[in-house]
């Protein structure tokens, strides 16, 4: 298998009240082609900062090595409405990545947009509409389609289903399954919900206070956690979801 991303000793340092503070500390991991890797942790653990550093959105205070073996990784964000320009139509939003990339005629772009709409199960009627007229689930599908427009090999999804209703959430998870298979996409899937990660990912990393405390194969990690914090998380999930008599 080919590596698509390799991160070595990545740290991100912030200054908080003049005290240095590591949002991400000595993180190392790699992502293989076609692999889905889950990143779990509680709020403020550094999940989002890590993904922003990998994508190069966060540049300040970043040390360590990030090796991309593919062009332009993309990102899907948590709040579907906030990820779409409210002043532009869906058609414009979907065409924009192609325009920026360049090298395509208007017709080619149009065809590509339609193809992508089909992939994410959206109707063509949406092209002339503004994001505010779409439901949360539809918005998230548009975001996914836009992110896939430049044919990335790696997609980072930051809590992409957390803001959605339960039934919509399961549809979007199914869409992730589908694109992952059809496009041989590598996905880093960030979530606080251990159930969602289990259902979608091959490998899992657990993050706490900027560090990855444990990573490994999903079955091992869920059933034989080694680190104290992982055990605590699994225990909490059981308290929440497993009925005791």
């Amino acid at each position, binding site marked *: 298998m080919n590596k698509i991303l390799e991160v070595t000793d990545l740290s991100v340092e912030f200054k908080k009240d003049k005290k240095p503070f590591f949002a991400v500390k000595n993180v190392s991991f790699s992502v293989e082609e076609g692999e889905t890797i889950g990143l779990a942790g509680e709020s403020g653990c550094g999940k989002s900062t890590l993904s922003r550093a990998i994508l190069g959105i966060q540049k300040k205070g970043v040390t360590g090595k990030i090796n991309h073996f593919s062009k332009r990784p993309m990102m899907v964000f948590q709040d579907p409405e906030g990820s779409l320009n409210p002043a532009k139509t869906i058609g414009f939003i979907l065409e924009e990545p192609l325009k920026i990339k360049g090298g395509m005629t208007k017709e080619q772009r149009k065809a590509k947009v339609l193809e992508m709409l089909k992939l994410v199960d959206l109707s063509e009627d949406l092209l002339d509409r503004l994001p505010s007229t779409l439901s949360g689930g539809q918005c998230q599908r548009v975001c996914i389609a836009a992110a896939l427009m430049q044919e990335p090999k790696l997609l980072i999804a930051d809590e992409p289903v957390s803001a959605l209703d339960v*039934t919509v959430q399961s549809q979007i998870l199914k869409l992730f399954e589908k694109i992952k298979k059809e496009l041989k996409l590598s996905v880093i899937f960030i979530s606080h919900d251990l159930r969602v990660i289990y259902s979608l990912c091959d490998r899992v990393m657990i993050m706490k206070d900027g560090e990855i405390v444990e990573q490994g194969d999903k079955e091992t990690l869920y059933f034989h956690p080694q680190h104290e914090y992982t055990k605590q998380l699994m225990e909490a999930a059981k*308290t*929440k979801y*497993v009925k005791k008599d």
Partner: protein
Amino acid sequence: MSMLKVEDLCIKVHDRKTTDTLVQDVDFEMNKGDIMGIVGESGSGKTMTALAIAGLLSRHDMEKSGHIIFEGINLLDIKRNVLRKIQGNEISMVFQEPLNSLNPLKKVGWQVEESLRIHTSMDKNEMRDRAIEALRDVELQNPEAVYESYPHELSGGMRQRAMIAAAMIIQPKLLICDEPTTALDVTIQAQIVELLKRINRERQTAILFISHDLSLVNTLCERVIVMQHGLVKESGLCDDIFNNPQDEYTKKLIAAIPKSPFGI
């Protein structure tokens, strides 16, 4: 006679031209020490139902019909000053966002005591003692310090514990919790769930638990009501509904729960 009996509850909002039905024909009963869940997605009317029972829907453009009979009194019929004697005294409520639900300019202790100040004639020291006791009871470390702090100085979990302390300080008969764990981290969520279970067990406080999370309701509650678009789709014992759902929507909700090693 049951403690709480909701009959044919309907809530409509009148706009200039249109009328929106938010809740339609909701019926259920609760007894002392019951713990019941209402499950639904956004727009299902679950929060509206909870607010109606807590007497917090006072908007003029809202039409409420049916009966909410609490201890023999129809809460929809009585005057506000009679209702006020029940609010915070016999029925208390905990909300989703602990930070927004706390007044940012008042000390936590002042807010925890508020029900005592309104419903009893205790003096300052008595109230303070009771408040600190209540804060200790929700497993807050160093309750004296929490008493003196402002909401922004506490973590999310601590704030929600303080909210529960404030709701429980006067020992209400019914505690309504509207998505009390949704805004919190997983480990904290588990602790809050345990805390609510303990309160229910030790004090026999009835709990009405509103959530979008079917499996969470299953672990906490005995009975559940499934709502969609203002209508009750199915209700009954959690075990029955999980093992043998009748309604299409309930089936869909159960199917939407991600497969995981944590049961359904």
